[in-house]
């Protein structure tokens, strides 16, 4: 087992080194006032990185780089992508809300009941959500054993209580099950963009999307992506004008 772990570690070491080297180069470029170069290096690092926390950090840094380049809506999109990896990062949320305000978009968290609930259930990553359910299930198993072997009001209440706890703890996981399959795109072109009937500039222009609009992907072609507009129609948008939040 030890030998196996060593082999895996040795195999991963070059990749980690390369990623860290790219990260350091990007940081140097960023500090030198060249966010475009930093952006390119962080994107390269992102393509090589597998760890979710690290991907979240890279998306966050890419958001900062986009903001420094003056692409505020794209910075918003990068921060939204980072939220998928590090949903409880306070600095990330502050940067996100700051950039949304700069871009004159609605706050991501308006602070009302619906948004607070949404933020609560989405505050765990997929792995954390599953482990939360697993811990609750362990408690349920214990209470179920006690209830089956000993009976009585106390064990029955414990059993029902842990059952309720399992249901509550399943909320973040259900959130991920529903939303992880979404392939959401954000319109990042500062002037918005046009929705075409076909993947061609010559086709009919059916809608105008505002910057910051979130749309679901239906199909993809080189340079074009088909997105569902609020009316449910599938419209083609140039890939350069939109940004996939799934990273």
């Amino acid at each position: 087992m030890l030998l196996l772990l060593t082999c895996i570690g040795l195999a991963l070491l070059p990749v980690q080194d390369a990623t860290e080297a790219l990260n350091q180069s990007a940081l140097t470029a960023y500090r030198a006032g060249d966010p475009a170069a930093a952006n390119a290096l962080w994107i390269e690092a992102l393509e090589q990185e597998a760890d979710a926390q690290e991907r979240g950090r890279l998306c966050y840094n890419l958001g900062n780089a986009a903001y420094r380049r003056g692409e505020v809506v794209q910075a918003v999109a990068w921060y939204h992508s980072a939220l998928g990896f590090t949903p409880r990062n306070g600095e990330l949320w502050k940067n996100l809300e700051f950039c949304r305000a700069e871009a004159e978009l609605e706050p991501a968290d308006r602070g009302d009941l619906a948004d607070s609930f949404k933020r609560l259930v989405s505050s765990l990553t997929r792995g954390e959500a599953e482990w939360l359910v697993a811990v609750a299930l362990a408690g349920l198993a214990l209470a179920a054993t006690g209830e089956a072997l000993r009976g009585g009001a106390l064990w029955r209440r414990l059993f029902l209580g842990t059952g309720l706890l399992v249901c509550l703890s399943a909320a973040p996981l259900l959130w991920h099950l529903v939303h992880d399959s979404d392939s959401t795109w954000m319109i990042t072109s500062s002037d918005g963009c046009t929705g075409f009937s076909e993947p061609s500039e010559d086709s009919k222009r059916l809608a105008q999307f505002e910057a910051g609009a979130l749309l679901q992907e239906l199909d993809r072609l080189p340079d074009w992506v088909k997105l569902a507009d609020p009316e449910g129609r599938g419209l083609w948008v140039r890939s350069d004008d939109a940004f996939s939040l799934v990273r």
Partner: protein
Amino acid sequence: MGRLSVILCVLSMLMPATAAQQGVSVQVGLSRPLVKLGDDLRLQIHVDGTRDARVHAPDHVDGLIFGPLAGPQVSQVQEFQGRRVTTRITMVWTMTIRPTRTGEFEIPPIGLEVDGKDLRAPDEPMSLRVIQDLEGATHCFIEVKDLPTQVYEGEPFDLDIRFGTDLTSGEVDLYLPWWPTHRGVLEIETGNPRGTYRFPVNDRHEADITELDPVQRQGVPFRVFQLARRYLATRSGTLDFDTATFQFSEVLRRSTVFSAGRYKRYHAQASPFQIEVLPIPEEGRPLDWTGAVGELTTQRRVDRRDVDEGGTISLTVSWFGRGNTEFFDAPDLKRLEGFEDFRVLAVEDNHFSDERRVTYDLVPTTSKITEIPPVPLWVFSPESESFERVVTDPVAVRVRAVGDPLGALPLAGDEFDLFDVHTEPATGTDPTPLGAGRLGQATLSIMGLWFVSRTWVRRRRGDPSAPTARRRRAALRRLRPALKAAHSASDQSAALAQFLADRSGEPAGAWLGRDLTTWSSTRSTQLDPDLLKRWIQLGSDMDASAWSDADQPIDGARITNLARAICATGI
């Protein structure tokens, strides 16, 4: 006779429907052929001999207003004629007709559908003569004051109807064909106090009426009432207002419990009138005109003039006057020149009769700001028939720079920059996902195992939470304190007996003096001979000590060990 009819009706419900039906007949007529203008009459329709009849809407007659059709009222009477039972079914409809002018009228026959056949009744048109109520014109009046002949779309106008009488005691009714809603106009609030009285209008509604000072008409004092409303024209075209009627019912005799009152009705009419609604001209219409029409003025005020950079100033802009204050879009400051250095946090929009009040929460983002710029609004003025720009005065303000660049936490509205990039690699790692499918399987497995084990335990051992089961489980735990408290061999013997009773479910007395060898041989699984021997020996020792004079307790550990061994056997 009336009582007899009731009895017959009841009997008809109880009897089988074998009675013969008479033929169908239709009667249509007016309650009165001659009426005074302002009074109403009824069109009555009787259909005998069927339950299957419908009345069509009457044809339009200029000068007559037909009310809604009331009915049908269906009555069924059965009569005994010798041995024969005759059933008579009658359907009755009524409709109120109100003339709006004097003259001779002919009401065409009314269309009906009876037993699936269309017919018209009566055969000839019904004649109606409407005459002027000269006496009513002497005692009552109604008039419309200062009505504009034309207004612009969106321009408010006042409708001032005054009516009165020189009679003292009676009831007032108003008949306004266009009340309470009129196509093409919206009623708007004026903020005036409520009226002195609430008078009925069109028999179904009520309106606030204000009593004015009495006036002299031809030397006779008249009480005068006013119905004032403000309307706003919503579309261009002609607004028609039909004849308004004021009816005063003078009380000749008040009604009592035993008799109906007697009234004499007087009527007065106001001529029908029209208002021409003109469209807002396209010529000269500014692109940023947001629909304001009227003669409006504006005012502004702020809650503070000295503010820190990033602080909030509430700018309240009010537009007053005679106009459609409720219906135009307030200026959007984000799109106005001069407001680039302000952030608009919130807008509160309110309307108070003749005033539109909008409060903007502004955040100055730089200390270079010295004033809040004017807020313009384009208004179409019906008087000058042109678009006018109504502008607030600028407000001088001072914005102080916040001189604390090392402030730990950014406050709302303060200058704030991004949190810096994250330079260190993430320390934590995301826990390895377990898989939702596995978790689902685990949940189902737990529930399944719980159900199976619960069922098995209860079938095999009964309810584990029953008192006997709980005592059995607690027997050893309760034995230890009992032995500690025992000061004699007799007490120890009693404690052991109680322990055995708890374990076996038998009474404690059954274990005192029991022949253990015989008892063991009757069990399905016999006890270990060594255990049985120790048990018998322990009993003998306790008995020997108990029956001696000293009654000294024996070693408690022996009893505890034996009890633990007994538990292990499953007793």
